[in-house]
């Protein structure tokens, strides 16, 4: 890949990187900075890109470090941690289940996953659903699912217990699942 093609390739991932940083940091300016640094680092490290992974995976890896640095540099306000504890409350999901623990509203048939995954509109709905999650829940979920951090890394970073983390991730998945079902799969079924 020549230099111009490489820059164009980097540029094509800018929006995605910005979205991930924004969901993660909840600060537009800081997100911009972090993405700038990521692209700059990628340009400098062009030789380091071996082509073994996709450019997107490689960039996500760099972004992950930049975001973790930014979170470390930022003062952790006690308020944020209090609301994280609040978001770790699993009882909110009671309405999803009957008293005996059976599904109140059983999960629907989603059809062929590849079909949804091949559509741009699906990802727009997913983005909207992520946006609807409580801020810290979304942040933790992105750390786990996009940035691929382990339970240990996230707990260390946010100073929460593993059990709290699993509850938050459970909560995120339940909410995301319901939102996708209502806004994508149900709509798709109606045609």
């Amino acid at each position, binding site marked *: 890949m020549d230099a111009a093609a490489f820059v164009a390739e980097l540029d094509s991932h800018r929006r995605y990187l910005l979205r991930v940083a924004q969901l993660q940091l909840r600060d537009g300016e800081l997100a911009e900075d972090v993405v700038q640094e990521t692209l700059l680092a990628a340009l400098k490290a062009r030789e380091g890109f071996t082509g073994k992974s996709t450019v997107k995976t490689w960039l996500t890896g760099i972004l992950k470090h930049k975001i973790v640095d930014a979170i470390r540099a930022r003062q952790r306000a006690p308020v944020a941690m209090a609301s994280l504890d609040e978001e770790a409350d699993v009882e909110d999901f009671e309405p999803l289940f009957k008293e005996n623990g059976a599904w109140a509203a059983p999960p629907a048939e989603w059809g062929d*996953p590849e079909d*949804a*995954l091949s559509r741009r509109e699906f*990802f727009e709905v997913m*983005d909207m659903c992520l946006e609807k999650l409580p801020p810290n829940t979304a942040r933790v979920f992105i750390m786990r699912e996009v940035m691929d951090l382990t*339970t240990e890394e996230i707990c260390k970073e946010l100073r929460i217990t593993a059990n709290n*983390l*699993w509850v938050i991730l459970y909560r995120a998945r339940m909410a995301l699942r319901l939102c996708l079902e209502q806004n994508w799969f149900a709509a798709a079924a109606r045609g």
Partner: protein
Amino acid sequence: MLHRLTHVISCKEASRLLSESQDRPLGWLERLRLRAHLALCDMCTRFAAHLRMMREAMQRYRV
């Protein structure tokens, strides 16, 4: 004895274990109970597929 070990877990418990299996290795007893539940429950089997699909979607996340 075996019956007590594989006491039937609810969908609520199964959904929690399925989610946690994406973040930590389940213990053998948890796996046993989960497998017993999934063998009988189409809804949770569906839920498990949804979790896999969402993980895949997040891997390919683009906007």
